[in-house]
């Protein structure tokens, strides 16, 4: 039939999207899990302290 859908291709595309998604999450997870240096908390604490004093 001329207008047959191509289910195999769709499945492959879905798998491809899933694989890309998995890699993206893996890539991002390594960045999310990096330990935070103290400087950010220090900066926010200083800002909060200055504000409280004023």
């Amino acid at each position, binding site marked *: 039939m001329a207008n047959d859908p191509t289910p195999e291709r769709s499945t*492959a595309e879905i*798998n*491809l*999207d*899933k*694989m*890309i*998604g998995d*890699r*993206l*999450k*893996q*890539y*991002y997870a390594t*960045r*999310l*899990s*990096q330990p*935070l*240096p103290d*400087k*950010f*908390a220090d*900066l*926010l*604490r200083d*800002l*909060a302290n200055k*504000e*409280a004093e004023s």
Partner: protein
Amino acid sequence: MSENAGLDWRTRLLELLPNLRAFANSLCRDADYADDLVQQTLLKAWKSRSSFHEGSNLKAWLFAILRNTFLTELRKRKYEAEDPDDELQNSLTSRGGQQAHMDMLDFELALSKLPQEQREVLILVGAEGVSYDEAALICGCAVGTIKSRMSRARVRLCELMGVVGAEEFGPDKADLGQNTVATS
């Protein structure tokens, strides 16, 4: 603004720090510069918090500040975001004659080669898990534009990795001891 309000704001910013830092790292791929971006974002967010509408999305608001800061600096400093030191390329070359199968180095290299606007959408939607609406808010464009960038990013990513199907992912078949189909 009361002291408690300041503390509350501080706590909320602290909670989102890992996400801000991960997004900054993904945008500029330079750890020191990413930290600078986060610091600038925190300062701007602190100073302009009266312009944040309570009940709206704080993460999207912060991400938008960070992204705008990055793009402003990018224009100002003409910072080369596309793998400036060929670090990823060199690391790939040093692996020797492996097949170009999909591992993290291949993936990171391909990701680094994407146009910035496509890369950020992939990261936001595909990794950070924000909705298309939130991504549009962060990037200051229409939802349709985000969807279109997402679609183009996927296609380009596959092109860059030379992937034509899901079976291309994973370890070498030879490594798994699978026989190659004889063609003769």
